């Protein structure tokens, strides 16, 4: 079922190569899980766009339905749902995340 908020999310996902739905902003994350993903992306030197779900109740609920995923943060790369904090952390720790991003043509400034 498509709703206006799902359309807004789909557009954002399509238009941003690396998109993070998070609580707070990269500079002031409002949740430890969101902060952890920001830190990993920053460490790799990945440029990303962040959407603060706390500023938009529709997106906060809508993104959970859109991804069929119950928690925030949520990371999208080139339109593909990568996962939440646990998955991103695990991929990073096992050295898979930089490969995953490079394979999709994402520039890593710190690689």
């Amino acid at each position, binding site marked *: 079922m498509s709703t206006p908020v799902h359309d807004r999310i789909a557009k954002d996902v399509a238009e941003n190569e690396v998109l993070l739905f998070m609580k707070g902003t990269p500079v002031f994350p409002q949740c430890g*899980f969101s902060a952890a993903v920001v830190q990993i992306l920053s460490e790799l030197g990945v440029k990303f766009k962040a959407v603060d779900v706390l500023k938009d109740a529709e997106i906060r609920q809508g993104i*959970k339905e859109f991804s*069929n*995923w*119950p*928690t*925030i943060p949520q990371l999208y790369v080139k339109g593909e*749902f*990568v*996962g*939440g*904090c*646990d*998955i991103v952390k*695990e*991929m990073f720790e096992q050295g898979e995340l930089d490969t995953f991003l490079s394979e999709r043509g994402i520039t890593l400034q710190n690689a």
Partner: protein
Amino acid sequence: MEIEKAIRAALPDADVTITDLAGDGDHYAAMVVSKAFKGKTRVQQHKMVYDALSGRVGGQLHALSLQTAPKD
């Protein structure tokens, strides 16, 4: 333990290890190892656990830090 019971109900072969991270009954870490995860992506594996917990993650359970792995 309710979380463990719910996961085992959906994935009967699962080895489930729960750690109470903060001691406040609200922040848990779960390690789940099951044959059912074979050939599944991490996202699919995590979804299977979230489904087992039927809506509790993200609601009543604010923080469940999850790690999954297929069982050999």
